[in-house]
Structure formats: C-alpha cells, structure tokens
C-alpha cells in the first residue's frame, strides 16, 4: 500500500510528497510530449495536482495487486491526458518509469489513450469523452450492492460535460445516492478550440450538480491541501455522490502555456521545452 491512511489529518509530509509528485508529473509528461511530438500538455498540467493528490494522498491501492477487489478505483475519463496519467501511474509503481519514454511509439503499451489490457492501474479504456462517469457509476453501484468499502473516483474535463452521457449517469448516481462515488471536474474553462463558456456554457455548474442530487464542493484545483481535505473526507453518511469542481488552469506551471487554448494539444519545440523545464522547478 503506497497511500497515506485515508482519514489521517493532512500532514506536512503528505503535502510535501504530493507537491513533489505534481512537479515530477509536469516535468515527466512534458518530456513525453516533447519526445513524441504528440499529446495534450495543457490538460496534463491542469490535472497534475489532482492526480498527485489522489495517488499520493487519497486512493488505497497496491500496484502489486491491481485487481484487488477491495481497491479504490480511479477512472481517467479525460483519457487524452495520458501524459499526466501515465506519469502518475509510473510514479505510483504500476509500471517502470523508463517505459514512459515509449509514449505513443509503435507497439508501445502507452497508447495515446489508456488501455487496461495493456497497463495495470487503468480501470476502463477511455478516449471518447463522456464515458468515465457512467462506467464509474456502475463500479460504485457494484460497491453499493455489496456494501463494499472501496471508493470510486472519476476525473473528467469540463468541456467533456457537454456530452449527454454524463447527465444520464448524473441522474442514476443521484437517484441511487451513491455516496461512494466522487466526481472531480478539471474546470480549466478551456476546451479544444475555445472557452467552455463561449462554446456551450456550463455555468452555473455547481447548481447543475446540486439539482441532480449531488453534494458539491468547489476548490482550487492546484491547492494540494484543499484537494486532500475534500477528497479524503469520509463519504459515510453523506447520502449523496460528491462532485468536486476543481478550478484549474490549462497549462498551469509554465508561463507561456498558462490559460492558453493553443496548448490543448500543442507540442513544444526545443526552445519552448527548455524554457518550460527551466520554469518547472
């Protein structure tokens, strides 16, 4: 077990570990994108702090026993952000860090979108948007039927919420009062081509989830202490699924990428790569 005890107060050590891992995820994923000249680095950076907090402060898992029925589940619905996702899985011990250098190379297990038949730690194959929450809802229902102790977490983008399948699942999860289910929305306000609010607006997003029967918490998605507190709180007795709206910035951590839609799937040249790595310290 590589995680911290779920209900322990956030110690400075845990926060320090999460901070170190988040920085490492940003640096390693950007190297992957630079080497592959493919990827989605803007979303990797908006999600990096959320992923680091989950895998090094919240989730209970054992990379040696990835199919343990009692494990907490994490579903990466924004499956295009494999730079960050593969980096955190490697950091957590699911496979060797050296394999990250094969990212998107021919025959690599590190496909552009994750495949559970290749990699331990992947719960379901994603890539098309709007798939993670409905599958996570099914996992949580299995836990509810069995009164099992595991929790299910799912990370979506925000533009992804324009897919109607999310709202089908939101109805079902709310109806069944799936308190063992936590949705985290990476609310960076940018989708592939423009701002979400200029495309198909989502606000007031918190009210939408409340109306579907969810508890809603809004946090700074780059503040590890806030993320840790809200994600590690016991779900028992909540009686509702939890939606955490994590306000983030696409490209967070690198000045020229910050909140810049061009970095949704932009890839760096050598100069940009070196500047970013100089800033990511």
């Amino acid at each position, binding site marked *: 077990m590589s995680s911290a005890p779920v209900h322990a107060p956030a110690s400075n050590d845990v926060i320090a570990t999460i901070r170190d891992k988040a920085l490492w995820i940003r640096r390693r994923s950007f190297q992957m994108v630079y080497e592959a000249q493919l990827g989605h680095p803007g979303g990797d950076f908006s999600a990096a702090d959320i992923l680091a907090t989950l895998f090094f402060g919240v989730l209970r898992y054992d990379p040696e026993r990835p199919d343990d029925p009692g494990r907490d589940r994490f579903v990466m619905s924004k499956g295009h952000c494999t730079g960050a996702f593969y980096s955190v899985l490697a950091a957590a011990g699911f496979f060797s860090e050296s394999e990250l250098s094969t990212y998107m190379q021919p025959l690599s297990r590190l496909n552009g979108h994750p495949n559970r038949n290749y990699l331990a730690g992947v719960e379901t194959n994603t890539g098309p948007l709007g*798939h993670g929450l409905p599958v996570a*809802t*099914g996992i949580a229902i299995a836990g509810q039927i069995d009164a099992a102790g595991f929790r299910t977490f799912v990370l979506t983008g925000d533009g992804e919420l324009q897919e109607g399948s999310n709202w089908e699942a939101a109805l079902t999860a709310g109806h069944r009062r799936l308190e063992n289910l936590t949705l985290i929305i990476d609310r960076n306000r940018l989708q592939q081509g423009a701002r979400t609010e200029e495309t198909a607006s989502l606000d007031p997003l918190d009210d939408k989830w409340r109306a579907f029967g969810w508890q809603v918490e809004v946090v700074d998605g780059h503040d590890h202490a806030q993320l840790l507190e809200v994600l590690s709180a016991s779900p028992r007795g909540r009686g509702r699924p939890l939606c955490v709206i994590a306000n983030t910035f696409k490209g967070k951590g690198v000045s020229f990428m910050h909140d810049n839609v061009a970095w949704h799937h932009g890839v760096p040249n050598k100069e940009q790569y070196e500047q970013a790595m100089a800033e990511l310290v």
Partner: protein
Amino acid sequence: MSAAVSVESGFFDCRDSFASTIEALAAADERIVTVVSDSVGSSKLNGFRSKFPERMVNVGIAEQTLVAVGAGLANGGKVPFVSAASCFITGRALEQVKADIVYTNVNVKLIGQSSGVAYGELGPTHHSIEDMAWLRLLNNLTLIVPADPWQTEHAIRAAAAIDGPVFVRVSRMPVPALEHAGAFEVGKAEVLFEGDDAAIIANGTMVHRALAAAKSLAGEGIRARVVNMATVNPLDEAAILSAARTGAIVTVEEHSVRGGLGGAVAEVVTAHDPVPMRIMGFPGFLPTGSAEWLMEHFGLTAAAIADAVRQTISRKR
C-alpha cells in the same frame, strides 16, 4: 428445456426462455445482476425483479449509461446481463458497446431483445436489422443469434460461462422448437438437414423457415443442407467451407442484406473457392407493416427460400 410459454400451439417466444434461464442462473450465482433501461417488461424480467430486487439495476431510459453501468458492474466483480431492445442497445449505445465493453474486454452480457423486425408496425427506428453487421465487426465480442427457445437457453448459459463480452440477439417472434442434432457449442454451426445439392445458412427466426424450404425441396429431389449458424462471432469457417463444397449457398437472416450473416459467409467463401451465393434479408429501411407481413413482402418465407435455392443451383459452375 426451460419453461417457455406457448405463444400459439407449438410456437414459443424466446424471451420467455431468456427470462427463466437468467432466473435459474442467478439463483446459483449471486454475482449475476441484470441491468435495464426501463426495459423490465419488454425483457420479461418481472419475475427476476420479484426474486432478486436488489440485483436489478434500472438506470431509466438511458442506453449509454445502461451499457456503461454494465461495464462498471463487471469491474466491481458482478456478472451483468444488460437487457434492452436490440435497436437501442446497439444503435444508441454503440460507442459504449465498442469502448466500454468490447475494447475494454469486460465480462458483460448484452441481451438485444426483440431484434429484427419484431416491432414491425413501429417502423425503422425500432427495427434492429443493422445490429449483426455493427456487432460482428467487434472482433472479441461473442455474438450469438439463437433459433429457438432451447438454443436461447443454452446461449444464455454459455454467455454466463464465458469470461468476456457476449451479445445474445433474442427474438420475440414466435418460433417452433427445433430438433437439434446435439449439444449447443459456441462457435459451432449445426446441420439440421442433410444435403449436398446446395446449402442454406440461416440463423435466428429464419432457421425454421429454411428447414421448411429444404423439406419442400426434398419432395422434388433437391437436397439442400440447412446450417444453423447461431454463432456469428466467432464464425464456424469449417462449416461454411463445407457448405461451399455443395456448389451453391443461400443465406437467410432477419437482418439487412448488407454486412450481416450473408456478408460474413461471403467473406469466408470469397477468400477460398467462390461459389454462387444468394443473400436473403431486408433491403434497408422498411415500410410499415406487421413483422409477419414484412417477412412475406420481402421474401423471407419457405417458398421464397426454396425459389432462391433453385435459382442458385442453376448458377452452379
């Protein structure tokens, strides 16, 4: 045989066979759950709900979530039987079937109910005559189209025993109980009538019509083999190549003539020694009419099948 309910004398609704079989399986295996989209009655699952209320998940009218929740339940250790009208579970949720079930390779059983033109008068939105084509492209999905209540029972039992994704296409069209040659085996076609002058390869509700055609042809001295190709994926290529050695093949399916059973057979035949073929089915979007009328109108009758056999034999090289 399971306790199928007689629709009219000697004819059965295969959904009854599905329902009694899933109840029996669930009594023996507590991992089995059913997942429905307000499709309890149309799936004949009222009995299951009464017996195992906590093991039925009804997501409401939401087929994408229906299929995805099935995938999630399998991740959580359940053996889900996801049951809804075949037209919606495929057409509406095809990406979930592809990505969440088959590409992820989870242990989920999809039950496509009232397939084909069973909803005749309701029109092409409710016909499911594209499903075999869509589904057989997903190469690790076991796809079974049973022909009668006995085969439906054994297809459901086989689905439960397979550790992986399975789709069973269940009809509500009344069909007679057939005389089977032996035990049901996934991936193995069965020869229900022997013959070497031609071969009729059929599945589902078309098998008994093919048999009637073969019996009438036998009266005029033409021996047409009837092959029940219940499993479309994986395909019994040996049975198809054996059928090709008769020199003439007619395929019959309650499905579009494009991309379904006929297409699958043609792919195998053309890769070896091509023989004259005739693919019988529906041409595309259909006019209104009862299921029985549609089958008559589009030539899915014993008489029309017999005609097709005679014509295909005349094209033998």
